């Protein structure tokens, strides 16, 4: 049960992180992982194994769309962009996590940044 909750938290935070990044600009998988790690100071880290199943699942749900195009080095990469459906998911997800942190804070004094 504990593992399941942990897995759900990881998945939910991953979705929010990816949607938030893609709301700024289209990125390909490696860039997504790199930016998440850099911008969270290493607190959140995606490996290939954790990133792509999540990306493919989000693509299946119509939140993101992958398209091959050349990156700045001229290499073909699959860039993900946010779809209108994904954009609609972003606000409720943010609200959910805000509520979650507030609840945790009031219970355990865990303040979020």
């Amino acid at each position: 049960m504990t593992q399941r909750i942990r897995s759900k938290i990881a998945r939910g935070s991953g979705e929010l992180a990816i949607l938030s990044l893609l709301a700024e600009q289209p990125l390909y998988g490696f860039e997504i992982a790199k930016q998440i790690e850099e911008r969270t100071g290493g607190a959140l880290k995606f490996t290939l194994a954790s990133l792509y199943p999540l990306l493919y699942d989000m693509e299946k749900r119509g939140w993101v769309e992958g398209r091959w195009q050349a990156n700045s080095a001229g290499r073909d990469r699959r860039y993900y962009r946010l779809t209108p459906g994904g954009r609609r998911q972003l606000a409720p997800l943010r609200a959910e996590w805000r509520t979650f942190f507030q609840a945790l804070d009031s219970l355990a004094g865990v303040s979020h940044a």
Partner: protein
Amino acid sequence: MPDWKKLVREHIASSALPAASREEVVSELAAHLEEAYEAALLQGLTEKAAVEFTLQEVNDWHALAARIHRARSEENPMNNRTRSLWLPAMANLIVAPGWLMILQKLAVQPRVLWIGDMAMVLYLPWLITLPIFGAFGAFLAKRAHARFVNRLIVGLSPALAVLGAFALILPVSLVVDQHRLTNFPFAYFALTIFNWVVLPALALLIGTLPFLRETNTLARTEA
């Protein structure tokens, strides 16, 4: 540098994903590993250490293959084959015959060639423009990351559709018109196939060829 594509392909070979979809996943994951490896080298790791570091991206390939299969195959509203084969082929099947109909509406006269007592009706303006439609279909398929065979099929789809129609017409004609094989006009049938399948296929192939070349991920990730 390790052949990342080969490594990924071997590890997810057991996945039940359709071949085209699997190949797309292989390309994407291999590209990720390649960049992770290069980043490790830039951090000053030796080649061997960089490989080991990169391989830590995946602890359990079997589990990853299963998760990817679940994510990509269930309730997918538009699978890879639809996107890379059926939709581009359908588009090509609409525009190429559509253009012929427009030419006919514009009263563009066909050229009639007589071969013995058999007439061959050639729409030369249509045949001349067919490479554009071959290119159009193959471009759409390539953009959807279709593999070589699918790009070829999409490029030639207008001719293949006619071939399919003829493959149906022959047995139906034999039954419905009560033809006997001995008096069936095979020569005329062959000429018709040459006119409406072989010639258009050759014209379409000219336009398709530039899009059959592998230019993308494979060559670059293995460079």
